[in-house]
């Protein structure tokens, strides 16, 4: 269980030396103290190239090329072992990567089950239910390679929801969805997050997810 995620003076290593320049100088995240607390929803708005995917990666433990520190309930994540990260990713942290990262040779259901078999969180009918709500239930047995980007995005969202979490990190979750689908996805995510008493941290470069946000931050 993670209650707060604290960013202390975090700066991506690529920005080292350009602290006085844009985008670091205008950022409310880099080189600031920032706290994400559970059950608040956060929207991080940014232009491309400001490092929002890097931020998601840092929090998810996928990258550690930053200075400063990130704390989970006061504990510096830099000391976490690989095993600890993997464990957190099955019951505390969920991520929707910007580039989805589906396995193209696996079908929709297999792509979701490869996560779900690890957590055992959803039943097959619950998964089918979510796919139906997102209007892609006819693609269940289709290899991910043959799905459109918008469809892939929805499959990846379902996959991210197949686990218990305290923080759900969504990196541009609706970048390839229209207004209607945005609303459907937002409702599903909202229900899941509320049911779990969890926080959503979503990024956007313009097309924001249609979710009630407690705090909006400019990266």
């Amino acid at each position, binding site marked *: 269980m993670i209650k707060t995620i604290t960013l202390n003076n975090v700066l991506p290593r690529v920005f080292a030396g350009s602290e006085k320049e844009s985008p670091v100088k205008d950022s409310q995240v880099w080189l600031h103290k920032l706290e994400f607390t559970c059950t608040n929803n956060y929207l991080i708005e940014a232009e491309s190239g400001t490092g929002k995917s890097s931020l998601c990666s840092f929090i998810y433990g996928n990258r550690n090329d930053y200075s400063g520190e990130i704390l989970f309930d006061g504990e510096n994540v830099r000391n976490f072992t690989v095993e600890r990260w993997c464990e957190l990713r099955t019951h505390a942290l969920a991520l929707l990567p910007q580039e989805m990262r589906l396995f193209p040779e696996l079908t929709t259901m297999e792509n979701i089950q490869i*996560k779900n078999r690890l957590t055992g969180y959803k039943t097959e009918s619950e998964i089918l239910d979510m796919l139906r709500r997102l209007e892609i239930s006819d693609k269940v047995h289709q290899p991910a390679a043959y799905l459109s980007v918008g469809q892939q995005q929805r499959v990846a969202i379902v996959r991210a929801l197949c686990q218990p979490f305290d923080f759900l990190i969504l990196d541009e979750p609706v970048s390839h969805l229209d207004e209607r689908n945005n609303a459907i996805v937002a409702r599903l995510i909202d229900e899941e997050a509320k049911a779990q008493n969890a926080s959503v941290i979503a990024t956007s470069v313009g097309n924001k997810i249609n979710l009630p946000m407690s705090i909006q931050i400019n990266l």
Partner: protein
Amino acid sequence: MLKRNNVVWRLLRRNVSVSQIVGYALANLVGLSIVLTAIQFYNDINQVWEEEDSFFSKDYLIISKRVSGVNTLFGNTAFSERDIEDIKSQPWTRKVGKFTAAAFDVRASINLGGHGVSSALFLESIPDDFFDIKPDDWGFTPGQREVPIILSKDYLALYNFGFATTRGLPQLSESTIGKVPLKLYLSRASDNATEVYAARIVGFSSRMNTIAVPQDFLEWANDRYATDKNKMPSRLIIEVNSPGNPDITSYLEQNNYEVAGDKVDNGKASYFLSIITAVVVSVGIIICILAFFILMLSIYLLLQKNKEKLHDLMLLGYSPSQVARYYYQLVGLVNVGVLAFAIIILLVATMLWRAPLDELGVEGASLLPSIIIGVVIVGIITIGNFVAITRNVKNNFYGK
């Protein structure tokens, strides 16, 4: 096990190069078979030497001083304390035992089918721990009236084929002779007092050309009957660490010592066999090592090609060991298969040389040591592979 329909395995088995793995398996099979077969051959052939002489193992040498004109005159073929200390200090010596000779007159009589035969005898003994096997009733406590004797096999042959046939006496086998009662007459030179002891032959030695009685008996008897009580031994038995060692031969020659039997020659043959075996085993091990590197390269290549998938699986929460498990199973399966085939080849090869060995009446050595060595080699290779896989998988944990 690797289930065909397991989603993760379906992802990870992509890029598994069957030809590389078959190549590794064949190479490792060849190397392992050479190692196991050579070791088994060595053990089996060594058995020949050991079988030939079960009374003494081949690691024992019996030495005496060479009888020459000079020491015939001065009667000095005994080993001095200094000689013995010098032998003890040689690097190839494990321990040295002295032959104790009877320093009194002994006569033995035997009654065979009504014919009494009587002869002057000599008796010798060596410390008990130089015997490989000890007959059950070996030993002597004062007051005991029956003395156990171990005889050289040559003496029995001499009797059976030289004596018995010409004198019309019955030929004797090793087991029947144990039942023949003997009488020993021990006499003291100073007052000609003679005592009679019953004796029984309890075993035969093919290497020790003497009439051996328990050390306890001879010490006790020397004390009672001998006039010269501190006689130095004229023969020594040495336990050496490798009988074929050329240093031993040169040392013995330098000091003008003689070795009983063809121990040293046997030792030399065994020494050469061990050298040849070492060479063949090294070749086998080199092949195994090369095979190991083939597999390592193949694994590195495979993991390199599947880099992204490995990273993505860990991104989903799969731990490195959960991901690596599939590769462990693949490598483990291949290695166990190689081991099984190598053992089959070992068994077949063993059968080929066991037939001629059987004709010699030699039973082969146990296969267990060779099989254990095979398991150890495959175990080491497998652990090496596992460590490499784990390390490589972990390297893909962080993204860029």
